């Protein structure tokens, strides 16, 4: 990964391609790299759909190596949804392939003059950018089938569906998985709209003829990877829980805890939870010939994903994640797993963030566009998005826009981005993260749920304000560092509880690059990423007033525990003091 690929979509005579050495970006990967580029090169006050915004696609420091779990891709830009800096992260195959092709990043700049749509093809021979208007209006699934027809089956694709073409703020970027299906999404913050604004429909990657990246110290790397794999295997979360049930095991956990946002954040428990739980989902998948244990990228040993077939045993979608099942399930009062799987399939095909889409349908239901619990109505609403009808365009721009258009008061967003699947009143640590992360309401940015609910990395009472700011701060810093390595965030469960596994991660980085990082250096990396993101956001016009949850979380007690979000504004404002 010794070069940066810049694609200038504005160039006279058509998009131009330029390769350059790493320069200042040497030593950076993933989110560290995307945030460095965005904060240095994107004017913070630019319109996110303008030619001044940039779409930065970066594998992590260890992507393209044999290190287990190293296949995550970071995609950064100024977000059309939040108006601040964004890093969206996805699994799938693209990161490994792009890294082996030798690129530390692709930076898409400018905007094409005409209305053409472009495809990009990168292999060991080089880079081709060509207009192809026949791709207009294709969903991600049909698009990938087309690309297979042209380029063969050993490719990885980065693409947008109709939502990205229409520049909707909930638009995602799809990454293909090992079965070459567009099921892994860089979902949050409308990164798909930026790709659409730049006229890029798909980036096809083929690393045939390229080798695995090799370490400075191959022996040291091999031995660190062995320790790393052992640590992940022996940890009960990464070695047993996640492979068996996937992320949707959380439906019963968060529901039992009374923090499961139901009917657009009205209450904290859902009667239908057992019908859409991870346990039920795994049983259903296996009975129908799908799978409950499946990795989203080569090199993943946790295998938290799965394959969901319909009632006839035909492939429908990958195993829907907890966030997706919540957003389209309990948040909408829906307890039908097949309907939820269909919604997941539609979201993936149109290319929209499942969290934003589900939260939006919840707001639409609050507005009276459908009854809570009406699965068929929810499916029809999402189909409007794909069709690009006026209603579809409203919905496709997310929960905040939809709430505004229909005069809804209870709109669960921070910095314009919808809250994920944990009510901040009953899981106050995640509430702090939602409010204070640079990303808008984002659960992965500082996953305090692990400590508040699962008792990982300590114990902090989820129903009280005490200790939540310190918890969220530490996790936000650690996560910013992990997001730069290309490692799947689920390694954190092993790394937080097993010091020898944390050391193995540091040893992997050191032996690969010939460095001598310590745990303190990892912390410093995380802090420097957050610092440049905060600076960008401030210059973009985001202030402390945007580091707040909507007032209703402070005023309306949540059943069953009758709790409100009690962390004070003053305390929230201390989070970024270090």
């Amino acid at each position, binding site marked *: 990964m010794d070069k940066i690929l810049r694609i200038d979509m504005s160039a006279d005579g058509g998009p131009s391609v330029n390769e350059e050495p790493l320069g200042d970006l040497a030593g950076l990967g993933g989110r560290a790299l995307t945030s460095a580029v965005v904060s240095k090169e994107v004017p913070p006050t630019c319109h996110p759909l303008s030619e001044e915004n940039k779409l930065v696609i970066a594998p992590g420091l260890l992507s393209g190596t044999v290190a287990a779990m190293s296949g995550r891709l970071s995609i950064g830009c100024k977000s059309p949804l939040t108006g601040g800096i964004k890093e969206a992260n996805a699994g799938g195959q693209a990161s490994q392939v792009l890294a082996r092709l030798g690129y530390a990043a692709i930076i898409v700049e400018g905007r094409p003059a005409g209305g053409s749509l472009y495809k990009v093809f990168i292999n060991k021979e080089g880079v081709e950018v060509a207009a192809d208007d026949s791709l207009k209006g294709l969903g991600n699934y049909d698009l990938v089938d087309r690309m297979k027809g042209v380029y063969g089956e050993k490719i990885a694709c980065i693409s947008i569906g109709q939502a990205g073409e229409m520049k909707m703020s909930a638009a995602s970027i799809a990454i293909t998985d090992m079965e070459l299906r567009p099921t892994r999404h860089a979902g949050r913050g409308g990164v798909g709209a930026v790709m659409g604004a730049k006229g890029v429909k798909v980036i096809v990657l083929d690393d045939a003829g390229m080798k695995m990246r090799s370490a400075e110290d191959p022996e040291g790397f091999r031995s660190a990877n062995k320790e790393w794999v052992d640590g992940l295997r022996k940890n009960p979360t990464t070695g047993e829980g*996640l492979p068996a049930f996937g992320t949707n095991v*959380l439906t019963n956990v968060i529901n039992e805890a009374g923090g499961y946002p139901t009917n657009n954040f009205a209450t904290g428990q859902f009667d239908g939870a057992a019908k859409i739980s991870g346990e039920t989902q795994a049983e259903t998948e296996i009975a129908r010939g799908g799978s409950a244990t499946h990795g989203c990228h080569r090199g993943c040993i946790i295998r938290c994903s799965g394959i969901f077939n319909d009632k006839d045993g035909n492939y429908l979608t990958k195993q829907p*994640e907890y966030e997706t099942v919540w957003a389209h399930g309990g948040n909408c009062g829906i307890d039908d797993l097949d309907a939820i799987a269909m919604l997941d399939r539609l979201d993936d095909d149109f290319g929209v963030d499942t969290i934003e889409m589900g939260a939006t349908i919840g707001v639409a239901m609050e507005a009276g566009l459908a009854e809570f619990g009406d699965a068929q109505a929810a499916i029809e609403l999402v189909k409007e998005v794909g069709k690009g009808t006026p209603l579809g365009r409203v919905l496709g721009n997310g929960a905040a826009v939809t709430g505004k258009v229909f005069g809804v008061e209870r709109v669960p967003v921070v910095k314009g981005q919808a809250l994920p699947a944990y009510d901040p009143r009953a899981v106050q640590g995640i509430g702090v993260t939602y409010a204070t992360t640079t990303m808008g309401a984002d659960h992965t940015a500082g996953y305090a749920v692990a400590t508040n609910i699962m008792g990982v990395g300590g114990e902090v009472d*989820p129903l009280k304000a005490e200790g939540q700011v310190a918890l969220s701060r530490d996790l936000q810093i650690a996560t910013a560092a992990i997001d730069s390595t290309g490692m799947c965030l689920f390694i954190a469960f092993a790394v937080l509880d097993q010091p020898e596994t944390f050391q193995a991660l540091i040893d992997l980085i050191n032996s690969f690059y010939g460095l001598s990082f310590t745990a303190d250096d990892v912390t410093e990396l995380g802090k420097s990423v957050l610092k440049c993101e905060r600076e960008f956001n401030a210059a973009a016009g985001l202030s402390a007033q945007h580091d707040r949850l909507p007032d209703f979380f402070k005023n309306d007690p949540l059943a069953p525990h009758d709790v409100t979000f009690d962390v004070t504004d003053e305390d929230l404002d201390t989070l970024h003091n270090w």
Partner: protein
Amino acid sequence: MKIEYVLFASFAALMPVGSDGKPCELEVDAGTRVDTLMERLKLPKEKAKIIFVNGIKSSEDTLLSQGDRVGIFPIVAGG
């Protein structure tokens, strides 16, 4: 006294047949703690990582009262 319990994820296999994820009622002595309940259900205590009593995070030492609902998970995670 009567309490109800649900066992989740890999512990679901220890629930009575046909319970289908729904809570089961149990008659227990006054003064019963969560760990006694786990022994009675033949649940390996060292694997019981997430324990709720009436939705409040609890531990194996927690004392149970009439009408309590107990939910027990092995170590699980998600996102």
